[in-house]
């Protein structure tokens, strides 16, 4: 099947196309060259005047796994359903289901989403949920840094190669695309009743600092040749003055690739009468000055949400601000996590400043290839609020209207008042398409070049950018039209991406011995079999 999208305005930063009117051809699931005879097209779709981009990619969104699922169970009152949105699609009336996650991302033109916190012992459930998220392709990042085996290796001072082998084995076992470090050592420290944990604090019983864990994992990622740099949730999330932690972490990266996740939650100074201020300028300057650093923002948007994190220590500490007043902390082999519901209120000084700090970071980081569009779903806001975030970035007047409504003290001191920058469509295409594909090492997507997967989003250009990005005019997934006028036409089965770096077989013997001594799990069963995932869940695993 040869399809021609004719007359669209293409935004494809990877191939240096910005508002370029040209036809786009795809055969079955991939973009192909224009045939010598245009009459060869089996189907021609007129998209004259419309914006054409690759399907969008979300690099950090909590869409699957035990922590997310426990949050669903904790807060039934927050996702009560009132209607079935699509009669022909299963569970389309279930507002916070795996299924609706796929439908709602597709409606906005997203085709690939990364779950950034897969606890290895819970990885099978993450994959089970992935299999039930339709249309979009998925990938997970495996959490390391609180795992006893790794901490023992560090305590014993083993060579870096041994660490590399372990990380490679863990990726093999969990079928993930990369590695995530969450408050490295923090959950392990909390288990020994430590309530604060900074970059140079040591994990009790191991004598290993958070910095040491982080840098060792970072080097492993680099030496294994993983495309996605170590994905870091720093220490001290949400604490006033924690911009110093973020800056110290940038420095600790030591010039090697590192991705700092949801940096809005680390953009906090501790100045002023209230001891809470914007640290966005300093953090953005550090990002701008260090080309090895990439960041996603984790933008806060006002309203009710729930925070879900593998940062057991910080989530426990946040219990006092739970709204409604219920919260969960859970401990598990090699980690843990917590669920704390929260309502961001525009009239609240801290919440308003959080909102402003996120936008300041978006606008102060110069290079759209190194700053990524996230709300840390659902921690800053649910991903369904993305249209509002597009508008805030692209429409200064809209921001200024908000500034006149939020807490006046926060608005008064916000740098945001002085920032005129507006993202244009090219920069949006970089930030949500081209750059994420590059950062994740997925060369077949994020662009419209020949050979790319035919994940294509078409939008009606509108002055109201929220309306524009809320509903894709058309979305093609692997060349199949799955969305029209913001409505899902048909479901599809997405893939799951993983990496499989090689490791020395000897590490398996050591891990096997360790598991036999301390685990309730056999290593053969800890490792997820691609065949079994396919036979049972129908997972289509693609190893990069």
């Amino acid at each position, binding site marked *: 099947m040869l399809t021609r999208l004719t007359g669209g305005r293409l935004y494809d930063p990877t191939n240096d196309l910005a508002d370029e009117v040209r036809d786009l051809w795809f055969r079955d699931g991939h973009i192909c060259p224009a045939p010598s005879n245009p009459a060869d097209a089996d189907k021609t779709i007129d998209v004259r005047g419309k914006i054409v981009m690759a399907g969008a990619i979300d690099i950090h969104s909590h869409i699957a796994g035990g922590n997310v699922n426990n949050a669903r169970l904790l807060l039934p009152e927050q996702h009560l359903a009132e209607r079935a949105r699509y009669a022909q699609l299963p569970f389309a009336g279930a507002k916070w289901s795996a299924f609706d996650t796929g439908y709602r991302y597709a409606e906005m033109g997203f085709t690939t989403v990364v779950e950034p916190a897969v606890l290895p012992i819970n990885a*099978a459930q993450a994959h089970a949920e992935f299999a039930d998220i339709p249309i979009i392709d998925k990938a997970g990042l495996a959490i390391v840094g609180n795992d006893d085996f790794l901490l023992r290796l560090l305590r014993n001072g083993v060579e870096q190669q041994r660490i590399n082998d372990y990380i490679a084995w863990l990726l093999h076992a969990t079928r993930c695309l990369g590695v995530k470090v969450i408050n490295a050592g923090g959950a392990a420290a909390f288990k020994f*009743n430590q309530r604060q944990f900074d970059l140079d604090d040591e994990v009790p019983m191991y004598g290993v600092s958070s910095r040491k864990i982080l840098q060792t994992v970072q080097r492993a990622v680099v030496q294994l040749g993983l495309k996605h740099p170590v994905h870091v949730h720093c220490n001290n999330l949400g604490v006033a003055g924690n911009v110093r932690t973020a800056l110290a972490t940038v420095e600790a990266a030591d010039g090697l690739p590192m991705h700092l996740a949801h940096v809005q939650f680390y953009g906090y100074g501790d100045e002023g009468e209230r001891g809470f201020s914007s640290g966005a300028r300093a953090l953005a300057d550090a990002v701008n000055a260090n080309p090895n650093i990439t960041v996603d923002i984790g933008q806060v948007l006002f309203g009710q949400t729930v925070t879900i994190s593998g940062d057991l220590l910080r989530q426990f500490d946040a219990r006092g601000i739970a709204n409604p007043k219920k919260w969960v902390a859970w401990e598990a082999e090699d980690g843990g996590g917590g669920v704390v519901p929260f309502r961001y209120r525009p009239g609240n000084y801290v919440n308003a400043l959080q909102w402003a700090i996120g936008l300041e970071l978006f606008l102060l980081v110069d290079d759209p290839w190194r700053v990524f569009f996230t709300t840390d779903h659902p921690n800053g806001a649910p991903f369904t609020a993305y249209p509002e975030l597009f508008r805030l970035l692209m429409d200064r007047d809209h921001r200024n209207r908000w500034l006149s409504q939020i807490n006046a003290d926060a608005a008064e001191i916000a740098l945001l008042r002085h920032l005129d920058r507006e993202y244009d469509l090219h920069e949006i295409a970089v930030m949500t398409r081209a750059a994420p594909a590059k950062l994740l090492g997925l060369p077949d997507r994020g662009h419209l070049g020949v050979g790319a997967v035919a994940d294509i989003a078409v939008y009606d250009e509108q002055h109201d950018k929220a309306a524009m990005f809320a509903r894709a005019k058309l979305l093609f997934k692997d060349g199949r039209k799955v969305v029209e006028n913001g409505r899902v036409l048909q479901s599809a089965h997405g893939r799951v991406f993983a990496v499989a770096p090689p490791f020395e077989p000897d590490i398996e013997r050591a891990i096997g011995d360790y598991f036999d001594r301390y685990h*309730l799990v056999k290593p053969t069963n800890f490792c997820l079999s691609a065949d079994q995932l396919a036979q*049972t869940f129908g997972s289509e695993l693609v190893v990069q």
Partner: protein
Amino acid sequence: MTIDNNTDKHAQQDTALHDLGCPFCALVCDDVSLPVRNGTLLTDKLDCPKAQAGFQLALSHINGTPLINGEASDWDSALNQALHLLDGARLPLFHGLIGDLLDCRAAWSMAARFGGVVDHQEVNTIARNLAVYQDSGWIVTSLGEVRNRADLLIWVGEPIDDELPRLRSKLLEPAERLHTDKPIDILELGPDPLTVIDHTRVLLGQRPLTEPTSAASMLMQRLGDADYPVFAIGHLRGPKAELVLRATSDLVRDINEQRRAALLPLSTGLGDIGAQLSGAWHNGFGIRTSLARGYPIQDLQHFNGQSLLDDGQADLLVWISTLSAAAPPTCEQPQIVFGHPAMHLGDRPPAVFLPVAVPGVHRPGFIHRGDGLRLVPLRGLQSNALPNTTQLVERLITQSSKSVEAC
């Protein structure tokens, strides 16, 4: 009908199968070994009675004949009859769910397609826990953390060793533990845990208490000596069960203001945690949820499966039980049973009986461990002629003529 259950071909050889997942209790051990002799898997060496009974029964039933009203039938006729009942039902109840994740997924898919309510046979514990959880949340730990880190385990309610035969050897008396060589100190709170817990909370808060029970004083002392006490919820019977859980959860929170402690609520039913967790990602809510209107509505009281049968609101019972051969509940409503091939059907056979593969024996699968943390892979061990629930359900859904209404 072609049946391919991806069973393990090793069973053909005279070796042994190792590291098998066992789905027959909520511990879901994955270290089971079955010797093979003359092509037959031997279960008599298993030291766990539940594993032995479960594997033995399934391994000795590798064929099944579908039945219509107790009479042998062929698969096409039986499925057509099931489809007729499903298409005609006003409110089908998908119940039992004594199976693995794939059985649960099949149930959720049927509920979405045919519009009905989903419940689990062993739901009372889960529903009780969920009620407490949804009110206040909690601080919980996992089986592995207890094994390695707990230094004091307090049974709230009767210990559940009978439900989980290897709990003691695997969890409470391991040969080695992380960070400590000390064995876990085990304490039982006796027949009135609520008073002990309440008094302990008062003592912990240094509030006045005229006559603390000696049990509460003793618990306080033991808690003071422990670095990581864990309150394991055992059998809680009677009307105060939810109160006891609530009070224990509150005590754990109080302790954590200064020190560490955790709760360990355990499922004991086959597949109940999996039904609950898979329900959450399918419909957002979990069990006791209706999809009759095309969108999910959860009601832990109203959608009690047995009540829906008793008061006649449900007009069809679809019973799924692949891990247990116990008969489905008797009821006036017609029944479709996706059942263990050795199922005892009793005096009143169901309208349609569909014998299906047992996960972990006849087909591969996954099942949640009792703490809900880990999905354990199950292997298919033996060639057989049994279809799996998913295959049958996919066919029913594909062939259904029931209209799907847009809202």
